[in-house]
């Protein structure tokens, strides 16, 4: 499959198999196969890699803001091996369910310390 990384993958929405929103493709990772040919190995998502790509003071501020909510100071991104991708249209579809992937650290922190403490947090209002 031919795909233009910067035009069709970067910054595109990631969806799980049922259409739950996972994050954006904040960066991609290349690796070398045994013959030394580079190939697209994984899609990355997380404020750390996004901050690096945005760059400058703005990017650093973004990463610093995210760091406040995590214990893992290196802001390890969520890494999705490229073979998990089933389809690329206006979004990038994965073959896994959101529950099988690690939840974003910021999301977890806010869920535990703020949202879950408000009555009715477990019920969708439609």
């Amino acid at each position, binding site marked *: 499959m031919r795909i233009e990384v910067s035009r069709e993958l970067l910054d595109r929405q990631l969806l799980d198999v049922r259409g739950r929103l996972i994050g*954006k493709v904040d960066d991609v990772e290349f690796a070398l196969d045994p013959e030394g040919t580079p190939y697209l190995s994984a899609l990355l998502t997380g404020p750390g890699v996004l901050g690096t790509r945005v760059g400058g003071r703005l990017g650093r501020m973004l990463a610093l803001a995210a760091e406040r909510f995590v214990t893992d100071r290196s802001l390890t991104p969520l890494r999705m091996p490229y073979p998990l991708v089933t389809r690329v249209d206006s979004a990038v579809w994965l073959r896994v369910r959101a529950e099988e992937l690690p939840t974003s650290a910021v999301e977890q922190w806010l869920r535990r310390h703020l949202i879950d403490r408000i009555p009715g947090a477990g019920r969708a209002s439609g």
Partner: protein
Amino acid sequence: MRKLLAATLGILSAVGGFVDIGDLVAASQAGARFGMAHSWVLLLGVVAICAYAEMAGRIAAVTGRAVFDLIRERLGARVALLNLLASYVVTVVTLGAELGGVALALRLATGVPYLIWVPVAGVAVWLVLWRIRFPVMERVFGLAGLALVVFAVALFWLPTDWAALGRGAVTIEEAGHGWGAYWFVAVALFASTVSPYEVFFFSSGGVEERWSAADLADARFSVLVGFPIGGFLALSLIATATVVLGPAGLTVSGLEEVAHPIVLAFGGLGLAIAALAFFAVTFGAALETGLSAAYAAAQYFGWQWGKRVSPREAARFHTVLLVSMLLGVLLLLTTIDPVALTEYMLIISAVALPLTYLPILVVANDRTYLGDRVNGRWLNTLAVALLLIIMTASVVAIPLAVGTRMGQ
């Protein structure tokens, strides 16, 4: 019958999304000071919001993605982040102005001081967002907002000189206030009709209600009927202000003046209807701006958003919503005058307009997203012409505001 009902409801949400505190203030001020001389601005604004909301709705229906979602792919991560920051500030200031409007409407109805109502309004808006279902919320406030039609009805009770009103609508004159003030009011009124949050909300709502290409006709119909109805209501605000406030030499410094013509025509009952209408449109707009602020952030970062999932599954989205609401309330608790806040809000909205409208036009012409449902030639000609007007308004907004000291 069900189809008719669905169409009516779509129109209601469009009406609800159109009229807000910005229209109440800007339209009444325009009428009180310049008579009907700004009618063309309203017409232009309605055409612009119809054209661009149709594009945003089409993008949502065909791609299943909301406008802000796609902005980042086309502008790149960095420029889109700057756009997000600017749009967020404008949307939160708008939220503050709408909450101020809710509090002013409650004071009008109860006589209890405005500042007491501010936190009440903030909590009430947040509770509705936390608990009430999306379609219910849109329809209740859209329907109650239609009570604004009392302004059109009042024209028949008041000693309206229809011929003079009609002549005023087709002549452009500065009525002794100077052209600077005329154009300042024109920019504010234009910004109030094409508020960016209307487009964020409309396209995100489409995604949330899972529009598909099959819903395109319905979405288009809602836009093309609902927004003009909103425009008609705003026009009747200008007209009543022209007939009553102008000759009496009153200027608009609160919702009392906006309601004054209705009180004159219908007395206490009129006041009650006007207060209900003001409450409904500002409360509805506060819901929409609050959601829009959170939508913009969530869609930039790719977070789970929306009201179809439980808040704990969209913790970052709901945190932004909560923080935005808090910022809106705090902004008002600085005891800033809510009408002045609305005027500032309209000016910064005008400056930020191209940030929303340019990307929509770009995506609406992108075949990788829309296939053969990209803009046709006529729509593009119209859209480019409107974008030029939007950019002009954006460029002249600050110089006009400074040069005329906010339209003095």
